[in-house]
């Protein structure tokens, strides 16, 4: 069993309620931070911890905090990004549902560190029942003196509000989230200025993911240096992975980032192997936007080394032969899955979620969906495959926000690694409607030239 810092207590009966959470050692981080530390030293501990943003980008959290502007007389805000919408990702939901006070505790400490007296949780609209859970946790914290005016007699005031979104993947992008929080369409803003300078209502703002803010609690309790000892290299601490697809035990797992991908998929402690005795074909290891990898490149890198569940190892080989840790949405596909169909559903998702602001993304996602649908339904041409490649290249890097990249990468990686399956669909349009392409050579060891 690996170290668990976030979910260790998630299954204690009653942990959703203040009394039990407090009895289990909860809110010690708030006491320590507000009574014994000052904001600057909290930021310093988070920097020392090496904590990286858990929403997908992996940007060092302490560094992000240190960018916040502090103009005289202008309020600052912390915003918690709970708009979890990347297909394959359901870890924040789990954390908020089972141990909501951990997030509230992390938010209080982080609000103190950043000087935010009014902090907002922006949660995806579909998680409607979790809004009630969070609001109850906030009320309990307030009733016990951990929120509201003059918290624990320290003079620090803080309120936390929960705002529901209304169904828009794009609002997970931090500037789109801010627009949405202001009551507008979720169109991402051009950066700079970054939110740390001009964010919510043009005030300095930090936007952090749920899991990132929850991780601040163990960091304060144990100290940044101790936290940094867990994991490996620049992948410090623990990471929540939401595993789904064709596995025996889908669910949310907390891992320290030293285990191999093979262990994560096949050990009974985690995914418990491929369902129905099938063989592994491919995996999207970090949420739908990161490159899909065939089995042979997933378990071992192109150099033939073991691949591990951490930021560096998952991206080893760049996009040519690697992928990304992303949001930790781990989607496993067995030998019966069709890569063309899977890529089509993801392209449809990104077309649906494009905000329409930038032409390469607005037009390109529509084209990709249409072409992939044609190939999937036996109406594709061989030239379509090159056309798809061309379109994704013209989207990537040419849009205001990363949704363009997120839409381009899955298509690029599917063609890069599974081109023969696309060609088979084009050459055998009727057969492709009746059976799937199968495993082909994707599970064979990679030949590495001497």
């Amino acid at each position, binding site marked *: 069993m690996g170290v668990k810092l976030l979910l260790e207590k998630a299954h204690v009966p009653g942990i959703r309620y203040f009394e039990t959470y407090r009895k289990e050692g909860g809110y010690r981080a708030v006491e320590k931070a507000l009574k014994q530390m000052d904001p600057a030293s909290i930021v310093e501990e988070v920097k020392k911890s090496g904590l990286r943003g858990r929403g997908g980008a992996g940007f060092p959290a302490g560094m992000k905090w240190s960018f916040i502007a502090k103009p005289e007389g202008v*309020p600052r805000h912390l915003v918690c990004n709970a708009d*979890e*919408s*990347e*297909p*394959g*990702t*359901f870890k924040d*939901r789990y954390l908020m549902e089972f141990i909501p006070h951990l997030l509230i505790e992390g938010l209080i400490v982080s609000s103190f560190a950043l000087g935010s007296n*009014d902090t*907002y949780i922006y949660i*995806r*609209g*579909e*998680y*409607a*029942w979790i809004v009630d859970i969070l609001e109850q946790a906030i009320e309990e914290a307030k009733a016990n003196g951990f929120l509201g005016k003059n918290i624990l007699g320290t003079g620090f005031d803080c309120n936390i*509000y929960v*705002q*529901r*979104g*209304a*169904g*828009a*993947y794009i609002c997970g992008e931090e500037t789109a989230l801010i627009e*949405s*929080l*202001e*009551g*507008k*369409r*979720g169109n991402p803003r051009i950066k700079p200025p970054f939110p740390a300078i001009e964010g919510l*209502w043009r005030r300095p703002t930090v936007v952090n993911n749920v899991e990132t803010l929850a991780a601040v609690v163990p960091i304060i309790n144990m100290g940044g240096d101790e936290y940094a000892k867990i994991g490996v290299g620049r992948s410090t601490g623990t990471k929540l992975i*939401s*595993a*789904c*697809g*064709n596995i025996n035990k*889908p*669910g*949310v797992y907390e891992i320290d980032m030293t285990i191999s991908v093979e262990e994560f998929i096949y050990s009974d402690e985690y995914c418990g192997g491929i369902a129905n005795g099938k063989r592994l074909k491919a995996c*999207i290891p970090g949420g*739908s936007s990161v490159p899909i990898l065939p089995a042979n490149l997933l378990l071992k890198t192109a150099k033939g080394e073991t691949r591990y569940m951490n930021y560096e190892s998952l991206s080893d080989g760049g996009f040519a032969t690697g992928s990304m840790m992303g949001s930790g*949405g781990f*989607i496993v*596909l067995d030998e019966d*899955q069709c890569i063309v*169909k*899977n890529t089509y*559903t*993801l392209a*449809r*998702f990104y077309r*649906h*979620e494009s*905000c329409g602001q930038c032409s390469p993304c607005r037009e390109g996602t529509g084209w990709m969906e249409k072409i992939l649908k044609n190939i999937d339904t036996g109406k594709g041409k061989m030239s379509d495959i090159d056309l798809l490649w061309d379109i994704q290249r013209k989207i990537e890097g040419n849009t205001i926000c990363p949704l363009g990249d997120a839409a381009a990468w899955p298509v690029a990686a599917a063609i890069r690694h599974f081109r023969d399956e696309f060609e088979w669909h084009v050459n055998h349009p009727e057969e492709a409607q009746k059976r799937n392409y199968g495993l082909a050579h994707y599970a064979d060891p990679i030949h590495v030239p001497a």
Partner: protein
Amino acid sequence: MTKFNDEQLKEFNRLVARYPEGKQKSALLPVLHLAQDSFGGWLSAETMDYVAELLNITPIEVYEVATFYSMYNLKPVGKYLFEVCQTGPCMVNGCDDIIEYIGTKLGIKPGETTADGMFTLKTVECLGACGYAPMMQMGKHYKEHLTKEKVDAIIDECRKNAAANN
């Protein structure tokens, strides 16, 4: 005439009070949810104009938000709205069969409402329940690990509840 009752107005005031003076427009998304829940599960032009008036913003500011977000229904929906996820991880776990089964059983296609106004079937993109697929949203809650038997039971229960409330 569309108007919030006292209880709904109390909730409206609670929502608006979260934001600084003059930033009441920030409450628009939550207020639209409240309006949709209060006025029959969808947002008519009349409802949107009323929300604009309450928040002291122009109607177009409400329309452009209502049309952007997928959770706001711009036309009437059935008493029970089935929103079935169809994105990758749910597809891998057989959502296509579930969508087809619900459609055949109710005699409607995605996007349609049954003639008795009881059920609307809608396909949606990823709802963050990938490990518990296939799934759908029904009102405030998720129905997960869907099977044909489970769908039968859900539909029966809806009909029973509707009959009991009549």
